[in-house]
């Protein structure tokens, strides 16, 4: 079953036509990695799926529900999707445990003690057990990003959107975040991820999607895309990012 379906999604900002008809499907338990140059529309794609941007045309279906229908409650749709941002976006005035349990308590109506128990368990599982009561500014970037991931997955979202989550991190800290994503993928989470980490994309993705000038130019298994890209633009992009 498809968790996410995009049909002909368009998005413009003024004269800038950023998404020019994107079609994409993400199946349950699938890890799909979106690659492409800066400005190719990856981030805008992620933002339209989370309904942060209103699409100009086309449809986005989440587990079969058209979430671009204006009659749909956008907050309720967003609550079904977990999002992790490039700059973590943790709430600095809340402790780690309050950050990760906020949505569960306020949006999903989970009793506070159950949310805290689940948050503590997840944080412990991902090596953050001793940070539960700390404030985010006491944590390293990698730790903050792992907390942000825990915040996104605590409510068991149908889909996890990861938008260049390692781009703001020290190279030393990228590994710990990617290991966590790998664990989530192995555990069966449905993930759509935009990234510049090609080796990670190659080893973790079930499918790699190459975006170019607002369109999905090519899509396939990591071996197909990285081993034998068909399109010239894909070949040029990979040649530039792989041989730095």
């Amino acid at each position, binding site marked *: 079953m498809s968790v996410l379906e995009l049909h002909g999604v*368009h998005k413009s900002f003024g004269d*800038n*036509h950023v998404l*020019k008809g994107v079609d994409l499907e993400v199946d349950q338990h699938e890890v799909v990695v979106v690659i492409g140059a800066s400005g190719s529309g990856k981030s805008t794609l992620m*933002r339209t799926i989370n309904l942060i941007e*209103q699409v100009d*045309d*086309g449809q986005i279906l989440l587990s079969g529900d058209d979430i671009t229908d204006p009659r749909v409650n*956008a907050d309720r749709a967003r609550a079904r999707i977990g999002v992790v941002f490039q700059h973590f976006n943790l709430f600095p005035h809340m402790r780690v445990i309050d950050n990760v349990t906020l949505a569960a308590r306020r949006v999903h109506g989970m009793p506070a003690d159950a949310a805290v128990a689940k948050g503590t368990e997840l944080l412990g599982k991902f090596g953050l057990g001793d940070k539960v009561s700390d404030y985010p500014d006491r944590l390293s970037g990698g730790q903050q990003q792992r907390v942000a991931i825990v915040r996104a997955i605590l409510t068991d979202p149908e889909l996890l959107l990861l938008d260049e989550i390692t781009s703001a991190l020290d190279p030393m800290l990228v590994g710990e975040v990617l290991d966590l994503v790998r664990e989530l993928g192995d555990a069966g989470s449905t993930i759509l991820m935009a990234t510049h980490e090609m080796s990670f994309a190659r080893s973790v993705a079930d499918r790699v999607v190459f975006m170019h*000038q607002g369109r999905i130019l090519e899509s396939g298994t990591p071996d197909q895309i990285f081993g034998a890209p068909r399109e010239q633009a894909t070949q040029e992009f990979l040649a530039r990012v792989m041989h730095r």
Partner: protein
Amino acid sequence: MPGAPSSWEPSELELDRRRHRKRASVRSVLIAAASTLVFTAVVWVALVNSPGWEAVKESFFNLEIGRDSFPDILEGLWLNIRALFFAVIGVAVLGTLLAVMRSLRGPVWFPLRAIATVYTDMFRGMPVLIVLYLVGFGIPALDIFPRLPAAVWGTIAITLCYSAYVAEVLRAGMEAVHPSQRVAARSLGLSHGETLRLVVIPQGLRKVVPPLMNDFVSMQKDVGLISILGAVDAIRAAQIDVAATYNFTPYVVAALLFIALSLPFIRLTDWIAKRMAQREQMGGTV
């Protein structure tokens, strides 16, 4: 290439969505209009049916007396506008000076820092009326200044009070600029002063534009307080007419004029705040 022309035409689905959004927005405008109408009607009926309404109407909303007092009050308002003009310039200069004095670093500057701190503490703590009395009646009594109109002393008193508030707002804005900006400027070799002038103040000022405009709106009406020193401004002119007619309508006229004076600026403040939010936002629909 982004921005290249494309042959995209909105689909039937999108057109349907647009029609739906349009209908929804028309509906919310209609609901807002209806609810405003009902609210106004209820308030109006309650007012008109109150037992003392006839007496209140006669002594506060007497059209004839209002019309007669209008020219005097308008002339008085012109004094308020002039006082406001000079007070704003004074506050801008003195407020900035105080804010910079308070943010000076280093032991040499301790006296200046202390003066600025004591000044802002004192003038924010003192009721404006008392400052007006002290400046308006106290300083002329020293007999060291030539005789000046009461309005001048009133303007000085207002300037002294508001400078303290504005200085604190400016300082808060300067402190809200992220320390990394200061580090970046200093590492380019800029001095502390240059860093303040070229990097910190421009950014800090932008952050505090809304509270500053709020202080300005507040000043627009507080210049009316100079009337207690005897200056014939809008409030004083109204008071004279009230005493002559035993009717309070001139006060209502003065109030309406003060509102009319501040309204354009209040709207401008809202507009600027909205535009700043738009420029800084990457928030999309949320």
